[in-house]
């Protein structure tokens, strides 16, 4: 305490110094010199002695007051309420966590289900298409490396513009003269539109009356790029005839 620290002990203690720190006289942390001077001052000064006596009485009253409530504690209902609140809070948190996990699991399961269903649907769709009609894909006519066929049918090829590649596996092809049936894995079916007269270039007989008709023709092209067989699809035949 400042008053205790500043007290030098050379001169007697004044009433002011006593009033500042003298009430702490019996406190364990009080300096011995200060205590001695304070006791001396108490003997000499009736005013401070009375003050000190009053303080001792008050301190005893405070001690009694403190002792009266020293055993008191919060009513048990407070603990009950708090435990109830604790349970509610943690139950809610647990429920929220469970709901969150459940929600995400359901969402993931649903996404997986739809993904599998979509893949299956795509696969079935592809298979059905392959069964019902050829799967067409437009490819440009090769001009950089012309095949003998294209060279032979130059007028027809120039008129065609695009060549349509049809799916393999369809039968009813007529082998072209001097050609061997290609292995199925080496052959590609190419659907082209040409004038009927162009079939003559492939070695087939053409009715001169219909030589100028445009027809669709499936060419079975070998891996060497030369047509090996030809087929006139039913629909094309009907329309051209």
């Amino acid at each position, binding site marked *: 305490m400042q008053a205790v620290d500043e007290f030098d002990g050379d001169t007697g203690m004044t009433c002011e110094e006593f009033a500042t720190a003298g009430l702490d006289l019996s406190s364990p942390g009080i300096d011995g010199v200060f205590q001695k001077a304070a006791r001396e001052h108490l003997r000499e000064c009736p005013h401070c002695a009375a*003050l000190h006596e009053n303080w001792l009485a008050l301190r005893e009253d405070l001690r009694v007051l403190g002792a009266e409530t020293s055993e008191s504690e919060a009513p048990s209902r407070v603990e009950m309420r708090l435990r109830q609140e604790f349970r509610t809070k943690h139950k809610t948190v647990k429920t929220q966590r469970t709901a969150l996990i459940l929600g995400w699991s359901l969402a993931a399961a649903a996404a997986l289900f739809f993904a599998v269903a979509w893949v299956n649907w795509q696969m079935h769709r592809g298979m059905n298409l392959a069964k019902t009609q050829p799967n067409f894909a437009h490819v440009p006519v090769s001009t950089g490396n012309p095949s003998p066929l294209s060279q032979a049918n130059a007028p027809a090829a120039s008129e065609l513009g695009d060549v349509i590649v049809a799916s393999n596996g369809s039968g009813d092809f007529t082998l072209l003269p001097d050609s061997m049936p290609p292995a199925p894995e080496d052959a590609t079916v190419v659907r082209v539109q040409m004038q009927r007269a162009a079939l003559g270039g492939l070695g087939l007989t053409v009715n001169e009356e219909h030589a100028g008709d445009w027809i669709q023709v499936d060419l079975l092209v070998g891996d060497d790029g030369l047509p090996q067989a030809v087929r006139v699809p039913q629909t094309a035949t009907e329309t051209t005839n």
Partner: protein
Amino acid sequence: MKAGVTPGEMQIDPHETDDALLKRSDKGDERAFTELYRRHQAPLYRFAVRMTGSAWAAEEIVQDVFMMLVREPKKYDVDRGTLGAFLYGVARNRIMKHLERAPRDFSLDEKGDAGHEIHPQLHEQMTPARWAELRERREQVRSAVMELPPEFREAVVLCELEEMSYEEAAHTLDCPVGTIRSRLHRGRALLLAKLEMLREVPKRANASRG
């Protein structure tokens, strides 16, 4: 698992630290929370009763403090001090708010949990006259304490009623020891003044001289 322990709870080691208990409590261990409550509720309640003078207000304050611990345990930072000091700090804020709202609401004669008076000690071995005298004196002291400004009152409550050391009180109130000393000095002087003891001093001094 031992009997009486609900799933998700573990047995409490009485030497387990507050911080460890708080962590377990945060994970939903009700026993850990209950242990924490039982460790700290009594001093907090006494502090609140002595500061507010109302058992009802003290009950509310203790409940508020621990509700905060249930709802927002992250508010307590281990690096900033002990859990006890933190709870005292929270209680102190609640008390100050209460005092701002109801500055003159004091009566320590409220009934305890079981319906009896909280302080039965004074009733033993006393004549009615002595009992009445002590009761009157007690009321005067209590009133004087309750009329102290809050900052002086809390120093008096902690150091004189709760019998904390200056260092403990300083730690609890998160202030320097010197502040506690000066507040206590002022508090004591005010108490003496309120109890009109200081007025009696000159009389006594004159009487002793005479």
